[in-house]
């Protein structure tokens, strides 16, 4: 299980990487992709959609199983990773490169987990 040191995390297994002032990319963690298994579909919001902290903004589907994906922050979708729509397996191959959405106008980003805190969450669930 890979946990990168330069990212922040959520209890629901998303990672968030600040890419600018009030701007961040969000993806699913390596732990998440591993427990979900081979992904067959990714359901993403549209550019311009609002996302709210702890609310679902999309979902991923592995064989017969759907899991909701949650936003770690409040903000607005400024880009989606369209490549994943045709190749969801990229998340399995490299979870930390396969970002799902980019969010701008982030209001605040408190309550995020550090890599150490997130590792604990994973160990408890494993």
């Amino acid at each position: 299980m890979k946990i990168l040191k330069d990212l922040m995390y959520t209890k629901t297994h998303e990672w968030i990487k600040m890419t600018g002032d009030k701007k961040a990319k969000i993806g699913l963690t390596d732990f998440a992709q591993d427990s979900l298994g081979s992904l067959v579909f990714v359901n993403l919001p549209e550019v311009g959609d609002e996302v709210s902290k702890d609310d679902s903004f999309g979902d991923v589907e592995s064989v017969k199983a759907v899991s909701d994906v949650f936003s770690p922050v409040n903000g607005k979708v400024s880009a989606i990773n369209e490549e994943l729509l045709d190749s969801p397996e990229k998340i399995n191959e490299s979870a930390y490169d396969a970002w799902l959405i980019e969010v701008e106008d982030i209001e605040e980003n408190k309550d995020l987990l550090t890599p150490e805190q997130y590792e604990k969450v994973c160990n408890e669930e494993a």
Partner: protein
Amino acid sequence: MIRSLKYIISKNTVPYYNLALEEYLLFSTEPDEMVFYLWQNKNTVVIGRNQNPYRECKISDIKKDGSHIVRRLSGGGAVYHDSGNLNFTFLVRHENNDVNKQLSVILKALQLLGINAQASGRNDITVDGKKFSGNAFYRSKDYCYHHGTLLIDVDIENLSKYLNVSASKLKSKGVSSVKSRVANLKDYKKDLTIETVKDALLSAVSEVYDLAPQRILDEELDKNKIRELENKFSSNYFIYPNKFNYQIEMQERFPWGEIQLLFNLKDNIIESVRAYSDALDEQFILYIPEVMKDCLFSETSLIDAIDKIPLKNELSHQIATDIKELIIKNLNES
């Protein structure tokens, strides 16, 4: 650890209500509890969370017959439910989700009824290699459900009547359905009824978890909340989301050239069509979007639309015939 086992049997056969109740129960599940839910839908095509209804089912036939179409929260393919089908759902918190144990409840219930069934992977339960139960899963935060169908006494002929099972010609984004060899449980035990299967399931779940199941009473349910969810499940935006617009495609190469039709549908009505072709009869191709606008997306209405295009020579006759065949082929591949 599951310390409390509850159950509920829906008296309603309206699919939107039953899926609303399922979602409501999911987010009401307590940390150390399992809710076991049994339900039946009348004449309903249930599609997977990420399926394109235009591609998966014959929407106009469903509407014509007064049958229903509903989208579930879990993954996988389209299935047809009627009153010979019983659905079960195990609702738990993630830490208590144990798919194998849950599947063993179904196997145990069948054993009690004298049927020897096997779990086939994570998703199917079979008897003699034939599938009678398909299973699917949904997780949101800590809340999980595992649900499945049980074919008890369904009209097997009807199972695929509304489904475009092998409609590979209708290319679009989304998850595809797969056709399986299926069987009714009644074929293995003649006196089986929905009621005896329900009783066996309740005995089995109690035995496997070693807990006495407590019935959830009607008055414990938040009716307003369920109604709100029912509105979601029955809404067009949930069943036919816009993202599937322009994702129905028909394409073919003919002696006169290649044609590609892209349909933008809303609630099974054609909002617009884009037609691309290298045919010499440009005018014919230009007519297509015009005549198809606002038509129902069905074989007859598309063919009627093509028949409205003036045919000025041999070539346009041939193009019309070929396009009509393309439509028939695409809407009937099952």
